[in-house]
């Protein structure tokens, strides 16, 4: 067969494709735009300072630092985007090798363009002092970008690496699926293991040998699994139902034991686990308000603050005006109670509001509470800007849970209780009423749902969980200040809910692991935390609005039309299949 590639600058239109003889279309704009995207991202990350701050941590000692990994990921993204788009433009299967050399060229071009953008940044930055504008455009950054080799040589190396990465990505794309997956998994796990390793144990990266071993073992295991998974699954399916159930219970018990043993890793991991637990607790609470009932509450921090302050006021010996000090366990019901009450009181005025208005008003409530706590007005009662210190620790008989490891267990129990409540209420009459309100208030009311009662119950339950989290938070830190209860806490919890998956209960654990645990491990990026949260919110809404671990019903709601379209078109005439496959998602596609 004759090799025909039809070159063009821009991607061909439908009309162009219709007149095509056997030639495969190839548009130069595709790899170049991909390169600009990836390179622009790399420049952006460099100017933000993310590359520089993370260049101190080694992934593989003396070979690859985390900063370099970031740049590398941008290059890989550019190459991947160029290769997949070129391939889909050509419209041939992965096994058609006619396009293969052109995929390699597209990858190389994209990588080259990306690294060229970086090189331009280095050239500008080393000739003009940019630090007046971009405070992170320091000589050290340019040193990192040129691999410490200085301007002319380092730039050439940078360009070469860019092109090479692009070619490698294209080559990996051309490999058969199983091998490709194994290699990607192996390569992907190296940084994960290295980061965990350096965060908790040594502070240094892996040795080159260790990295190679990880690559070989993971890739080998993954390949072996991909060839044998069907037989293993079949063998498990052949077992008797009781054996299968036994295995499942065994797996759960093992997972539970691992969770229980986690705090033994040390005080620092335990501290992170405590924060993850607190956010999971709040996420579960907000999940009821936002995820189940569809009431966007941006003032959630108010209930958290009220729980913490109630605990502080009741248990701290510093607060004299109450005339008594309680123990932690005596004060806990009050903390939850006050928060619940506040949930109802703040819920009443916003009953008639929907959507956006509710969000802003609740945001206002949260800020009012913080500003009032901060003001001198209530200083004699709750300490004003000095906060409350010496808050009681939980005591269980002879055991005082006065360290981060010990506190993990009450928090864990709290999470389990709350998760149980959420799980049981989800499919109860109440849970269904919540979801009906979320879908359509007017219809729900017409079906006989008492809007006032149902909404207030959602607010109260959510607030109670936040109050519980607040009480634990107060005792965890033993001192609380108004500054701890900023609007950002509400936003963080909202991110947990959105990223975990609105309405999904295991999603909250995943969400808080990702949003609280990950930034702790990637400490270098702590100042970019909110930047990444913001980006994550936007990206999630654009590409995966149902969250990481979606609730089944929600997924159907957001993508149901697509699935239906698939069903219809499969049974329908072939022309509709093409239309449905080419169509953007019906619900979210908008006016593209």
């Amino acid at each position, binding site marked *: 067969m004759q090799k025909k590639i039809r070159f063009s600058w821009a991607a061909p239109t439908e009309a162009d494709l219709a007149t095509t003889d056997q030639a495969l279309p190839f548009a130069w704009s595709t790899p170049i735009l991909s390169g600009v995207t990836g390179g622009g991202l790399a420049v952006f990350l460099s*100017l*933000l300072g*993310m590359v520089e701050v993370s260049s101190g941590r080694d992934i593989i000692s003396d070979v690859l630092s985390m900063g370099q990994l970031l740049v590398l990921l941008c290059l890989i993204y550019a190459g991947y985007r160029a290769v997949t788009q070129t391939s889909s433009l050509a419209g041939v299967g992965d096994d058609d090798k006619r396009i293969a050399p052109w995929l390699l060229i597209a990858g190389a071009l994209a990588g080259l363009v990306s690294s060229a953008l970086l090189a331009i940044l280095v050239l500008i930055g080393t000739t003009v002092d940019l630090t*007046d*504008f*971009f*405070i*992170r455009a320091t000589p050290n950054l340019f040193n990192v970008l040129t691999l410490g080799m200085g301007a002319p040589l380092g730039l050439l190396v940078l360009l070469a690496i860019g092109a090479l990465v692009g070619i490698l990505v294209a080559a990996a794309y051309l490999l058969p699926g199983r091998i490709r997956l194994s290699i990607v998994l192996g390569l992907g796990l190296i940084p994960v293991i290295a980061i965990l390793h350096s965060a908790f144990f040594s502070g240094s990266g892996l040795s080159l040998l260790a990295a190679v071993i990880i690559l070989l073992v993971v890739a080998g295991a993954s390949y072996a699994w991909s060839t044998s998974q069907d037989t293993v699954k079949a063998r498990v399916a052949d077992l008797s139902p009781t054996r299968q159930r036994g295995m499942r219970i065994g797996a759960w018990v093992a997972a539970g034991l691992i969770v229980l043993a986690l705090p033994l890793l040390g005080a620092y991991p335990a501290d992170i686990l405590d924060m993850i637990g607190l956010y999971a607790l709040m996420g579960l609470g907000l999940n009821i308000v*936002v995820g189940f009932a*569809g009431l*966007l509450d*941006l003032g959630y921090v108010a209930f958290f603050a009220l729980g913490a302050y109630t605990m502080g006021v009741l248990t701290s010996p510093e607060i004299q005006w109450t005339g008594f000090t309680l123990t932690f366990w005596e004060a806990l019901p009050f903390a939850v109670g006050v928060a619940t009450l506040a949930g109802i009181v703040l819920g*009443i*005025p*916003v009953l*008639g*509001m929907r*959507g*956006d*208005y509710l*969000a*802003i*008003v609740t*945001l*206002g*409530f949260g*800020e*009012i509470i913080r*500003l*009032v706590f*901060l*003001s*001198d*007005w209530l200083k004699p009662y709750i300490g004003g800007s000095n906060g409350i210190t010496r808050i009681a620790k939980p005591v269980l008989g002879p055991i005082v849970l006065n360290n981060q490891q010990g506190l993990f267990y009450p928090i864990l129990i709290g999470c389990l209780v709350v998760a149980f409540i959420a799980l049981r209420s989800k499919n109860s009459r109440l849970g269904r009423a919540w979801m009906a309100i979320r879908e359509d208030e007017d219809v729900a009311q017409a079906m006989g749902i008492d809007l*006032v009662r149902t909404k207030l119950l959602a607010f109260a339950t959510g607030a109670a969980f936040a109050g519980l989290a607040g009480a634990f938070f107060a005792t965890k830190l033993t001192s609380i200040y108004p500054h701890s209860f900023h609007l950002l806490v509400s*936003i963080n919890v*909202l991110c947990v809910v*959105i990223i975990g998956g609105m309405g999904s209960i295991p999603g909250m654990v995943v969400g808080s692991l990702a949003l609280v645990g990950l930034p702790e491990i990637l400490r270098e990026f702590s*100042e*970019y935390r*909110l*930047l990444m*949260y*913001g*980006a*994550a*919110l*936007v990206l*999630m*809404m*654009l590409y995966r*609005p149902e969250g990481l671990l979606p609730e089944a019903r929600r997924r159907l*709601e*957001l993508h149901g039309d697509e699935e239906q379209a698939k069903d219809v078109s499969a049974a329908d005439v072939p022309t509709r299949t093409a239309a449905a496959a080419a169509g953007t998602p019906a*619900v*979210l*596609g*908008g*006016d*593209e």
Partner: protein
Amino acid sequence: MLQRLRRQLSGTMVTMWLIGLAILAVVVIGTIRTLAMGHYTGADWLDLSIYGIAQGSIYALIALGYTLVYGILRMINFAHSEVFMSGPFIAYFVAVAVDNAGLMGDSNWVIGLLIVMLVAMLVSTTVAVLLERIAYRPLRRAPRLVPLITAIGASFFLQYTFLGLFGSGIRGYPEIEALKGRMMIPGTNVPILKTQLLVIVAAFFMLAILYIFVQRTKMGKAMQAVSEDKDAAALMGIDVDRVIVVTFVVGGALAGAAGIFYVLLFRQVHFFMGFFPGLKAFTAAVLGGIGNVTGAMLGGLFLGIAESLFPNLVLDGLGIPAPYQLKDALAFVLLVLVLIFRPTGILGERLAAKKA
């Protein structure tokens, strides 16, 4: 008879009116006691009012951005506060360059200021348009919470991008010598800070232009049509996408100008500077009736004046120490009260429950 009365008065209604009456009583008592104490002279009140008008005209300009977008897309552009922040922030670098070039002197400060202002408006407009294109347009038909959450995410992303790129420091704008100090308002003997006078005059000028634009021009009428009914407007041959982009352009430009006025009053930029003005401008938009252009202007002015008078007028009389600390809380209290007792705002249709 009694039964019918009971049916009309539901529990929540009664509670809400009781809360309302209690708040009214507190306000009245506080005001009377402050005036009886006589801590402040008439000149003090006048000063505070002028400050309030200057601040309020800035709120009005920002509030227009919220109101225009809400009117057309039925969404709160939460990131509008960052649109407001980005303009003066980037223009700061231009302002420094302009100052170094000697364009902020006594004779030519108008040119320098105009350049800085144009840059700020341009940057804010660009940010607003990019937001619309990247974040909002793909979600136009999504469930109602989705665009709002996107806007919140975009707001934080922009804020912390500015923090990351330009640092967390407060950057002081160069001062314009000619605008230092006070003068008498022409024709009266009321003293006023020159910057305040400039801000008030310029802001009112821009508000007037916008009013004419929306009421008289073809594009303005198209905007009104789209906000009435998007589909019907499209059937009448209006390019809805273009109208939406123009809306973001207008909102962004006004926010950029408001940013420069803000800088004239406070002479500094900071990555977090958009947050409170943004929220307050939103409050102002709601006060005036969201979706209503005149309402946003009135709401902004009202909020500015209320905010500068209220702490001294009411809280002082109640014996609350350091009342200015609660200034920011006031805007939120007002917002909540308006939404509870008059969700239509001063001049608006009822939107809080129906179309949101």
